[in-house]
């Protein structure tokens, strides 16, 4: 598979692929890296937002 890298388009067969996941209460991030020897040449990230913000209206008091 051909991917975009810092060195132009490269075939992934000659690269070292590393993947990871980071998750907290707001989002889950999955990333994939491709390394050429000891150099990072590609990193893409897919972040799934779990939920947004919830706001509450506050009522005043009459009188």
């Amino acid at each position, binding site marked *: 598979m051909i991917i975009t890298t810092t060195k132009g388009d490269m075939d992934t067969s000659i690269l070292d692929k590393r993947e990871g996941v980071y*998750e907290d209460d707001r989002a889950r991030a999955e990333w994939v890296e491709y390394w050429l020897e000891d150099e990072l040449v590609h990193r893409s990230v897919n972040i799934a937002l*779990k939920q*947004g913000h919830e706001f509450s209206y506050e009522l005043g008091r009459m009188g």
Partner: protein
Amino acid sequence: MANTQAISGAMKQVALGAVVNSKTLSAALYLVSATTDGANTVYTTTGEVTGSGYTAGGVSCTNGNTAGLTGTTTFWTPSASLVYTTVTLSTAFDAVMIYSTTDSNRNLGVFTFGSQTVTAGTLTLTMPTNNSTTGLIRFA
């Protein structure tokens, strides 16, 4: 039975709809070192990411949804993922601001996630389910 003091869901829906329905929106990314938050009334370049393939102001935010209402909670979520294609963002970022270009770049909200970088790659921000419990913006 007793009466209950409350703001109606219908009013909340109208209020949210006034700022999101049929608006043209964009989404900008912000560095971990930035202080962007709800106090920003409009889009700002201060603290915005820079890098190859990224244009100041970010990307278009697809807005095919209108403010919904379930019970007394109104909600809204962009109707598609935010995609930044073939970018290099070497300095860590952790937030996106969604703002309305229809309304003089009004800041609708800043949403944070874990610190990330991108190298000659694609950043995709997938939106949560658009409902009253996970929608991106909810007034309860």
